[in-house]
């Protein structure tokens, strides 16, 4: 097997399905998948004091809104580390943790998932 493959072109086994439209990419799952929008702070280096999702909850087609508080709850219940800040890879005296977090909004269509 190996000796036959050395010095000769080798046809890839995955190509026939990729060439005929039968590949399976993540986006191909999209038909029944929920859509998600990440809402980030428009202010650099701001401290988030409160995330008010009251009005957003009324958006048609909305499935759920997740904020940092949900990560804390998840950590307390399941012991996951998701609420921990990312490790500071390059220590710098003026960079600190605990800055802007983001809210996560999920909906059945892109239009309703888009932050307004």
């Amino acid at each position, binding site marked *: 097997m190996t000796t036959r493959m050395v010095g000769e*072109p080798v*046809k890839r086994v995955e190509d026939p399905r990729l*060439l*005929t*439209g039968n590949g399976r990419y993540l986006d191909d799952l999209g*038909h029944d998948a929920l859509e998600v929008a990440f809402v980030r702070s428009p202010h650099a280096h701001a401290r988030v004091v409160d995330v008010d999702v009251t009005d957003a909850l009324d958006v048609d087609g909305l499935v759920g809104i997740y904020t940092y508080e949900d990560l804390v709850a998840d950590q307390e219940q399941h012991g996951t580390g998701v609420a921990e800040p990312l490790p500071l890879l390059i220590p710098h005296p003026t960079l600190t943790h605990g800055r802007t977090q983001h809210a996560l909004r999920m909906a059945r269509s892109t239009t309703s998932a888009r932050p307004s």
Partner: protein
Amino acid sequence: MTGPVPVSLVVNGVRHELELPARRLLSDALRHDLRLTGTHVGCEHGVCGACTVLVDGRPMRSCLLFAVSLDGAQITTVEGCRAPDGGMGPVQQAFWECHALQCGFCTPGFVTTITAYLDDNPAPTRDEAREAISGNLCRCTGYVNIVSAVERAAEIRSADRARLDGDT
């Protein structure tokens, strides 16, 4: 906002009667409504060419077309670029032989574009082949092998044609 609009599309030879929102893109109609996920959506604004399909034989960006505007049209996607016997079509075969794909994401757009191009120009030079694929972006392989695949596809097509002529 109007309600769903009836539209009839013939996709790869199969007629589909659909009720679609007026703003449904052809790419989404193919992928989501017909679940033909071979057509890929890359940039969603007509630059990358990944979503190219043939509309009545002509290559078009399916991400820039509203499906309801194509009532009665014949659409060919990469799934429809196979050989009549169900095997790989000449362009698909040539891509395989020439290693003209890596991840395969942009490939459906190239296959449809080149399939239509070879109908117009069955024996392109390398320069012409390069020009023909200039509207499609590939971020894996570079274009050298894809240009070779255009030439190889032209050879396969003319060999197929000669064989057919020999049979009759």
